[in-house]
């Protein structure tokens, strides 16, 4: 046996188990789900029948499905820009200071690494109605009327967005700051000597150089918001995505279909729709940013 053949054999020896794993635990289940989305697959269905696109027709006629996917769109369209803009603003501020920079960064990372279930319950506690809720108490002491927050169908979704922005913000700040610190200092110095204002330096030098990082973060955060589940599950009464389905996300809809109603075929169809949405959004963003980058 030649040396290169022997090496290739060793390589596949090392890869065999992990490759088998990826096929068995990622690709095969995905394929299985795709096939089953065209059946009346249910946990207690003994006879599985082919139903064509019935499951898709069913979900698109289901107002709860439409509502939950609409909510997911709002989560993404509100949450992603909010966390990106705030992340950038705070990273720029953090870049201005020298003392305690590491300390601030550490504090901002805290919500990102702690369990989402736990922080969701902490925020749910803070969002309680008077006399229990600390946020309402603060508002009242400032002369602002108490809000319904998680009990108000018009406000609940935005409370969930706010909590997820709070969770993800530290992550964005740290990545943006790392990006800002790779901007060559000579570039900024030269502009300063030429009399450019700080604002102009930010807009004309730092922001354009941050484009690749911004793209990365926009894609990552959009996916986070499209997949939002744990926060909604833990911050709504009985994990139902209420009040009045106002916070129900696509992922929660899929979960309920599959594991509360055991209607796996419908859940499979809905999850394929979510998967398609995630793919399309990601590709569109990549394309959009690419175009804006080559000027």
């Amino acid at each position, binding site marked *: 046996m030649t040396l290169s053949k022997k090496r290739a054999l060793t*390589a596949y020896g090392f890869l065999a188990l992990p490759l088998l794993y990826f096929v068995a635990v990622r690709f095969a289940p995905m394929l299985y789900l795709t096939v089953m989305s065209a059946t009346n697959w249910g946990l207690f269905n003994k006879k599985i029948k082919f139903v064509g696109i019935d499951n898709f027709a069913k979900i698109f006629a289901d107002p709860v499905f439409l509502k939950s996917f609409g909510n997911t769109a709002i989560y993404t369209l509100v949450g992603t820009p909010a966390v990106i803009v705030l992340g950038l603003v705070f990273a720029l*501020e953090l870049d201005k200071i020298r003392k305690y920079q590491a300390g601030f960064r550490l504090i901002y990372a805290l919500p990102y690494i702690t369990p989402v279930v736990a922080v969701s*319950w902490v925020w749910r506690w803070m969002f309680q109605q008077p006399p229990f809720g600390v946020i309402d108490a603060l508002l009242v002491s400032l002369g602002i009327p108490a809000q319904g927050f998680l009990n108000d169908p018009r406000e609940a979704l935005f409370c969930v967005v706010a909590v997820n922005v709070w969770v993800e913000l530290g992550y964005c700040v740290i990545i943006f700051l790392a990006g800002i610190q790779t901007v060559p200092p000579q570039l900024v110095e030269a502009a300063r000597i030429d009399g450019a204002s700080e604002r102009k330096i930010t807009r004309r030098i730092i922001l354009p150089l941050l484009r690749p990082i911004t793209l990365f973060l926009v894609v990552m955060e959009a996916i986070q918001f499209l997949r939002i589940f744990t926060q909604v599950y833990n911050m709504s009464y009985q994990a139902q995505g209420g009040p009045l389905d106002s916070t129900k996300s696509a992922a929660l809809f899929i979960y309920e279909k599959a594991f509360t109603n055991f209607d796996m075929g419908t859940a499979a169809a809905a999850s394929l729709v979510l998967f398609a949405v995630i793919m399309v959004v990601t590709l569109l963003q990549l394309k959009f940013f690419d175009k804006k980058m080559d000027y």
Partner: protein
Amino acid sequence: MNNSKSVFAGAKTRRLVSGITAYLVLGILAVVMVFPFLWMLLSSLKDATQIASLAFLPTNPTLANYAIIFTSKHSQFGRWFMNSAVAAVWTTASVAFFDSIVGYTLAKFNFPGKRIVFLVIVSTLMIPTEMLVIPWYAMSRAFKWVNSYWGISFPGLVSAFGVFLMRQFMMTVPDDFIDAARIDGMGEFRIFATVILPLVTSALATLAIFNFIGNWNAFLWPLIVSSKPAMFTLPVGLANFSSESGSDWQLIMTGATVSMAPLIAVFLAFQKQIIKGIAMTGLKG
């Protein structure tokens, strides 16, 4: 001369003002980031009568809530803690081993199909968990994996992201090390285990820390695969316990504190690696 001096002084004042504003803005954010944790901790030290008072500090701080949640019939925090620890530790060990060996193979071996293997592994990153949990559950029922440690951890035994990360690091290892070891007649697996691994410990540590955190915090899959309270992980147990606790917020906040404590300890112990790890790239998902 006078003029330029005042311009200079103006710039200096402006810089000072912008410095003060920066600290102010950053300080406010720091309060927003820390307050919920503080409020959680303080609430856990209050008893049922104080919890409604909204006084910032508990008047009679008590650890009774901790005793209650660890001994109450409705909760098994001790058991959940152990389940989380077992699942997180053993998944992390598996990821560390398999991801580094796959990363090494993809970085340092030449073999037909290498590009395809890499693409196949990385493309699994795009399949969302929300979708996979449905067939995973069917699989777990068929193979009787429901309510077992294997059931909780099998989806995370190899991480495609970790493979990607380790491959990047393995590429920085000079080939000379490997060649020298081969000339010495070492076996391929021994080269990997005794020559290569010690060279990438910092990357391996970062991967392990993030994997541990991710597993400790995982919710959706453990929620689905464990239906018996004795097999809950901490997040699942906490969610269940909290929704059954009604308005006993002091107990819910105690449970939240308990489920966070180990992570905060890991965070403080490995803060440098964690911040560096995040800055390097996004590690959640």
